């Protein structure tokens, strides 16, 4: 068994530098690598490009990096719910590339899987397809999309073991699996790090081969963005 454990978030983030490109898992605030984001803020890394479906909220998630103007460019599918983001984007302080959500996921998985490019119908005939090759298959038009290139993938899982094997929970899974192995180095933070042998090999969502460093996060706030409930009658 090849051990992937590191002591803490500082060790996990060794080697990150200004101007790098990061992939970050999560959908809204669900399943985001909270502890790693905290470390990126603390280290005050500058001019980074972030590939992440969303950009957090003003005071949580990637919003924390935004507030400190650490982000040069965002590649996302949806950036609502963040006033500071909209301000920096509309003023031109930050570059933003908006792409379809399925394309975002597939470009991550393609990077992980050695597929340099693929065709998708998403965005054909829209500004998303401008400057991209398009092509007909079976009478329908498609856009050629390329695998992402990133220096680090930062993901968050529910449980993990020392071999780097990961299990996600509920809809906190989202973009995290596709990003595992998609960056040059993948760092996983988990809520619970268990000894090797405790996870059922049948139930592992992401095998440890895709993970270079793993650690148990110090704490998880897991903030809820839109609390919606039913009354008991």
């Amino acid at each position: 068994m090849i051990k992937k454990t590191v002591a803490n978030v500082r060790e996990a983030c060794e080697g990150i530098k200004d101007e790098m490109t990061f992939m970050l898992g999560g959908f809204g605030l669900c399943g985001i690598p909270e502890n790693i984001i905290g470390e990126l803020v603390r280290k005050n890394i500058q001019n980074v490009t972030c590939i992440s479906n969303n950009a957090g909220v003003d005071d949580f998630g990637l919003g924390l990096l935004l507030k400190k103007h650490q982000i040069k460019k965002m590649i996302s599918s949806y950036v609502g719910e963040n006033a500071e983001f909209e301000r920096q984007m509309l003023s031109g302080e930050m570059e933003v590339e908006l792409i379809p959500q399925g394309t975002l996921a597939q470009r991550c998985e393609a990077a992980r899987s050695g597929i340099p490019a693929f065709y998708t119908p998403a965005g054909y005939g829209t500004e998303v397809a401008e400057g991209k090759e398009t092509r007909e298959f079976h009478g329908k038009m498609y856009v050629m999309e390329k695998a992402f290139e990133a220096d680090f993938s930062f993901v968050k899982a529910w449980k993990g073991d020392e071999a780097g094997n990961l299990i996600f929970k509920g809809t906190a899974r989202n973009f995290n699996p596709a990003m595992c192995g998609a960056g040059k180095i993948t760092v996983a933070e988990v809520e619970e790090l268990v000894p090797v042998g405790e996870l059922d090999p049948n139930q592992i969502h992401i095998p440890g081969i895709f993970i270079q460093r793993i650690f148990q996060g110090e704490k998880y706030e897991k903030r809820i963005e839109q609390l919606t409930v039913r009354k008991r009658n």
Partner: protein
Amino acid sequence: MALSKEQIAQRIAKEVKDGYYVNLGIGIPTLVANFVRDDISVEFQSENGILGMGPFPFEGEEDPDLINAGKQTITALPGASFFDSTMSFGMIRGQHVDLTILGAMEVSQNGDIANWKIPGKMVKGMGGAMDLVASAENIIVAMMHTNRDGESKLLKECSLPLTGVKCVKKIVTNLAVLEIIDGKFHLLERAPGISVEEIIKATEGDLIVNGNIIEMKF
């Protein structure tokens, strides 16, 4: 009288058939789930990674790891499954989802839709909408017939950046139910008390009115 948002949802719910997997967009589409007949089997997919989405949780039972694509806390019904974004959009692009219901800022008579960007003003992003409209065979748009200034949102051509081309098949607005056939809007039903003339006036695109247009009942 023009339909309320709930009534638009209620009318769209009639399009949901037994055995359908349905993806509901944010806003009015989300409300459709409340009106689906309970004697048919339907499963709701949310593109962030759940099939078999249930109602909102009871107070105190919310789980931060269980949300829908609108970031709302939800529940999972028996038979539900969780999956990652890649598989989720595989379902969507692969046309395994039977019906997509989403909102729009503009729709054109050839089925183009715009709902993600107002240049220089509002840029929230397309989320999963571009994947959904480019892939789904069966798309229903839920929208207001006109904007706040009374201008038609059913146009000859969209003025806003497109989300997808030639993809919308059916539209349910606060005034009418319309179908898009061969590059024209076709009026199918009108809201209670709304005249065909009012709908013609509120529609900028070419509108075909054939025979007697039935009035919706609620």
